[in-house]
């Protein structure tokens, strides 16, 4: 079977992120870029499909040339090939714009399964996987915490607040995974070395037949007008136990007031 794993370059989750006031996007220079940690779960699932189903896995990244190390990083987990879509016109794309590029890139590929992380750690919209499925007219199975392939179908446990639903669809399909799905392993050193010589195809928007106006800041349906720093943390309420039990009542009142109970 053939699997595609779209991955994203994000600012280091642990780092302090800054917005560039010139174009209201994340300042990529201010913090180290990493492979989005949620993608590691999709990659691990793909590696397991390699082991169980002999899957051939291609990693797809939409992003500038400087993001190539992220493709290599993804390949270091033992994936087979890379596909990068790079074009200056892509900068500033919103979720739909990104989804358009990914969908176009996927149209050219043969695949049975697309494995997304359910969200990226910078934008956290959770929109792209479903949008890609919609654009491709494929079944969308999101928030998977368990995945099984059986012949020509895929079954996932779709996570929600009260538990999960069991959802099955025919392949090809688009799946997004949540972090509960597995425990990603580390790449191996030999995997890191081998990643350097894996095939990597680089395409432009023109190659894919995407109109530049449909993507990037100009094609974005959402516009950021303004941003502010997060307000400083206010001191919390301190409830002191004076031994009379009044503290318990105070805590209960506070929780009711904040609508926790």
């Amino acid at each position, binding site marked *: 079977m053939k699997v595609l794993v779209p991955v994203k370059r994000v600012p280091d989750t642990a780092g302090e992120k800054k917005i560039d006031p010139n174009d209201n996007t994340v300042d990529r220079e201010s913090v180290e870029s990493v492979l989005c940690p949620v993608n590691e779960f999709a990659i691990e699932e793909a590696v397991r499909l390699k082991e169980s189903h002999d899957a051939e896995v291609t990693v797809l990244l939409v992003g500038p040339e400087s993001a190539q190390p992220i493709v290599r990083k993804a390949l*270091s987990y033992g994936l087979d090939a890379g596909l990068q879509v790079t074009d200056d016109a892509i900068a500033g794309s919103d979720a739909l714009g990104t989804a358009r590029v990914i969908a176009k890139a996927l149209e050219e590929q043969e695949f049975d399964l697309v494995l997304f992380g359910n969200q990226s750690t910078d934008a956290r919209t959770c929109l792209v996987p479903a949008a890609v499925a919609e654009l491709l007219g494929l079944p969308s199975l999101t928030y998977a915490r368990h995945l099984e392939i059986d012949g020509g179908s895929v079954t996932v446990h779709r996570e929600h607040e009260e538990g999960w639903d069991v959802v099955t669809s025919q392949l090809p399909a688009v799946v997004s995974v949540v972090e509960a799905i597995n425990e990603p392993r*580390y*790449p*191996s*050193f*030999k*995997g*890191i*070395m081998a990643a*350097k010589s894996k095939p990597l195809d680089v395409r432009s928007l023109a190659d894919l037949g995407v109109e530049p106006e449909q993507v990037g800041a100009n094609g974005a349906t959402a516009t950021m007008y303004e941003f502010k720093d997060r307000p400083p943390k206010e001191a919390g309420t301190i409830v002191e136990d004076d031994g009379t039990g009044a503290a318990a009542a105070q805590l209960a009142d506070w929780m009711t007031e904040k609508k926790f109970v």
Partner: protein
Amino acid sequence: MHTLPEEHRHLLELVRGFATTDVAPQADGYERAHEFPRPLFDQLAAMDLTGLPFGAAVGGSELPYRVYLMVVEELSRASLALGMGLSVHTLATWAIDSYATPEQRQLLVPDLVAGRALGAYALSEPGAGSDAASITTRARRDGDVYLLTGTKAWVTHGGVADRYLVMARTGAADAGGISAFVVDADQPGMTVAEPESKMGLWSSPTAQLILDDAPVPADRLLGDVEGQGFRVGMASLDGGRLGIAACAVGLAQAALDVAVGYAREREQFGRPIGDFQGVSFLLADMATRTEAARALYRSAAERRDHASGVGPHAGTPGAGTGYPTTIPSAMAKLAATDAAMQTTTDAVQVLGGAGYTTDYPVERYLREAKVLQILEGTNQIQRMLIGRQLTAPRA
């Protein structure tokens, strides 16, 4: 790290991620349980980290020794038992890989390099420590086997290793009468004693091997020649001691990290204690000593890589001629382990009473540093080697 080639940088990032996320949080638990962290070693194996300096023919990554040592340092910063575990494993594997016959190499080395088998090195005996040439364990040829009888002492990984390099006497009562054997853990006639009850390094088991007419197949005589065991033992220590130096630097760095963090937080007399010169000078000396030790082991490793013809100096004059690097190794081991002892002791001092409790790891670091001044040749023996060379008659 910024001067390293990209692939080495990626390797060290991989190791650092693993060390901080997986190893460090578990190190103390394994220590208290007195249990070797085999699952962590197995993870090293899964990441291809157990055979970094070995040849591709046996499954290794052919990395310079210098880079392998940086991995040992990084691991030791999180867990000395694991970092030293890799170092001792490499010591045994190197000896076998370097002196085996082609058939033995094929049979015995690949699973050590892949980390499926854990290696150990058994030279010392109850009566033969610093004077290692005086071992009395005997190996007597009997048809297709050698019968080994005697007690090997202080064996790191004793009881948890899969393969032991055992030195035993096949000939005269001198260094030339010693041979090396590769003995599997399930060797009939060999038992492992209760592990030693030690001051520290509890998750690295140290135990005696008791050999009682153990019939070791004759094809396990390393290199298929008698009498080269002492040479094997000493030559492998040249690399092993660099490993111990890297362990010591990792340990010193760990102690320094804790001390610096504490000195910035802890306030007395209305100021962080790090503001007091008495404390900041202590920290400055700890940092400088650690960095000096790091530079020394890395430059010694560069000489070793030059001697073996790998790394950036390949092709320069003298490269690959295999000249001995015993003295740089001894110097690095001596300086780095003394630095670790001093630095861990000072770290306890910086933390005051807290440093003397098990609430902080520095008391453990201090106990662990002590053993590094003893094993793979005490620091007196390192000084003896260095001094002997300085005062040797000139040719």
